């Protein structure tokens, strides 16, 4: 099969899988809704016909399930986009959003919001605090990395690791000191999950993921040039430092809000682009959209599993993606070492 044909088939499969998954995920839950009823309700929302779901079904679908399912797609798509971009940037097929250091910053913000009681009193306080934590960590990483002039990629990464470790240490101190009853609230966030998220969370994620994703798409060609190596990119007249920073910044712009609304959802950014590269090829204008679709499909499915299999509590979404992603990562690592 030719590469073009393989790529087309992959896009076709992903393009069919995601809407199907969204429909199934919108239909299944504590109170099952008929799939056809969901479709007709969605059409009714567009002014086409009437919904057969009844008032209760309508409220469940439009207030609870749809925003959650769409948010899952945005979170997965965003993380996969970031993973694809970082894998090209670092020329490492096992890179993902965890390298940015925004996760620990977001966690610190979230724990602060819970320990001061903001999360219990103010709508979106936890999400906003996590977002502020993520961006504060990013600014700190940027400032520290530039103290001695233009940093190398490794310098940026190691600074991110150090700042992340500091934020994680502060988070641990707060978690130990925090009141018992409040710990539970923040544990759900730290473990990753979409319970209790509504349209506002989806709007926040949508703004940054779609906006940042579009901007990353504009950088697809420079990203491909960068993936050849810095010297080669400079020889092709690419402003290497500026491009690198732009990609890094856009990745953080996506990963920060996504982490803020969903907590830690590991491995999605690694698995989706890594699995798709052999199918759609390494070219960013193909890999980025394909990764978005695959990441979205993966998290929609993982979230469905998280809310379907837990009896007394929902399973943490981050655990579900880790159960899938960690074995995949190990296999990929072994394969890469075997090739090396």
């Amino acid at each position, binding site marked *: 099969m030719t590469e073009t044909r393989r790529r087309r088939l992959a896009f076709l499969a992903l393009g069919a899988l995601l809407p199907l998954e969204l429909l199934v995920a919108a239909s299944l*839950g*504590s*109170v099952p809704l008929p799939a056809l009823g969901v479709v007709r309700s969605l059409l009714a*929302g567009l002014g086409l016909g009437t919904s057969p779901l009844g*008032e*209760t079904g*309508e*409220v*469940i679908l*439009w*207030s*609870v*399930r749809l925003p959650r399912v769409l948010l899952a797609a945005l979170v997965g798509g965003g993380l996969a986009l970031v993973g694809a971009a970082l894998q090209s940037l670092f020329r490492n097929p096992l890179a993902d959003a965890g390298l940015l250091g925004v996760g620990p910053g977001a966690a610190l913000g979230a724990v602060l919001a819970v320990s001061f009681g903001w*999360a*219990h*009193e*103010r*709508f*979106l*306080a*936890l*999400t906003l605090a996590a977002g502020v934590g993520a961006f504060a960590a990013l600014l700190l990483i940027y400032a520290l990395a530039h103290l001695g002039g233009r940093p190398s990629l490794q310098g940026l990464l190691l600074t991110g690791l150090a700042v992340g470790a500091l934020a994680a240490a502060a988070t641990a101190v707060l978690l*130990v*000191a925090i*009141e*018992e*009853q*409040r710990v*539970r*609230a923040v544990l759900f966030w730290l473990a990753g999950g979409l319970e*209790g*998220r*509504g*349209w*506002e*969370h989806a709007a926040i994620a949508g703004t940054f993921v779609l906006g940042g994703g579009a901007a990353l798409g504009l950088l697809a060609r420079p990203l491909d040039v960068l993936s050849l190596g810095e010297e080669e990119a400079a020889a092709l007249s690419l402003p290497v430092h500026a491009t690198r920073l732009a990609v890094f910044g856009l990745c953080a712009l996506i990963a920060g809000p996504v982490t803020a609304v969903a907590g830690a959802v590991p491995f999605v950014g690694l698995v989706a682009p890594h699995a798709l590269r052999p199918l759609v090829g390494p070219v960013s204008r193909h890999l980025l959209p394909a990764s978005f679709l695959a990441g979205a499909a993966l998290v929609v499915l993982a979230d469905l599993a998280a809310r379907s299999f*837990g*009896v*007394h*509590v*929902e399973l943490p979404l981050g655990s579900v993606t880790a159960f899938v992603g960690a074995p995949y990562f190990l296999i990929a690592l072994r394969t890469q070492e075997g090739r090396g």
Partner: protein
Amino acid sequence: MRVAQLTRAVVGIACLASGAAADPPPRVASLNLTSDEVLVDILPPGRLVAVTRWADDPDMSNVAGRVPASAVRLPRADLERLIALAPDLVVVSEFTDADFLHLLDTSSLRHHRLRGLASLDGIREAILELGRVVGSDEAAAGLVRRYDAVLAQLARRLEGTVRPRVLYWADPHTAGTDTPFDALIEAAGGSNVGRELGLRGMVPIAAERAFVADPDVFLVSRGSGAAAALRHHPLLSKARAMGEGRIVEMPNALLVALSHHAATACWRLASLLHPDRVPAEPPAP
């Protein structure tokens, strides 16, 4: 927002404006154990449509075995199931996060939040307020009369007594001021060591600090493993209270009671701290 939701919201606002909101909610759902315990005692069985899964657990609940069979047991705060139950009021805890409350609002589910449960006065007010909100003022007042009577009689019995210094131990947490445990210990004729140490809230305490504080009594939850942890602790097992066998174990359901059962908890702890003055059982209503 969909037309149906908008209609419900407009009708809700119109009802509020006309005073119809004062009508008691016919169907009430409880999302926390404290309201489970109060509502079981003040609502006719048919009006309580949902309780938490802990309500039937005798280790956690003081109403286990008394919850109406008709009430749905919610394993978690499952918004979809709540919407399907269509309660007229959802009672949530102080620690329910604001994002969940917002989702209740956008789903047109009215909620009432319990607050101020860190003190015995706060518990009294919370019961009365819950009674007002669900339209069972008299029943709630009856619970509070009994609650006050038990506490008042306990206070009389404890007048002039020497207060043992009590350290609540939940390996490694203890209770400072602004906690129900502080209120419990003080009302039961003890002196909270956490308060003495200047602690506030439920906070971890270093074993060395607890040892140096030299409490007269360790208070632990029965079945939590805290008593065994103390007995095997390298330092705290050598504390004076441990040498004298002064570990008081309270049934967990009473120890964590933030409802009218908190008065019984105070009485029971007092009977363990002052067996010469306080009998094991509180006076009959």
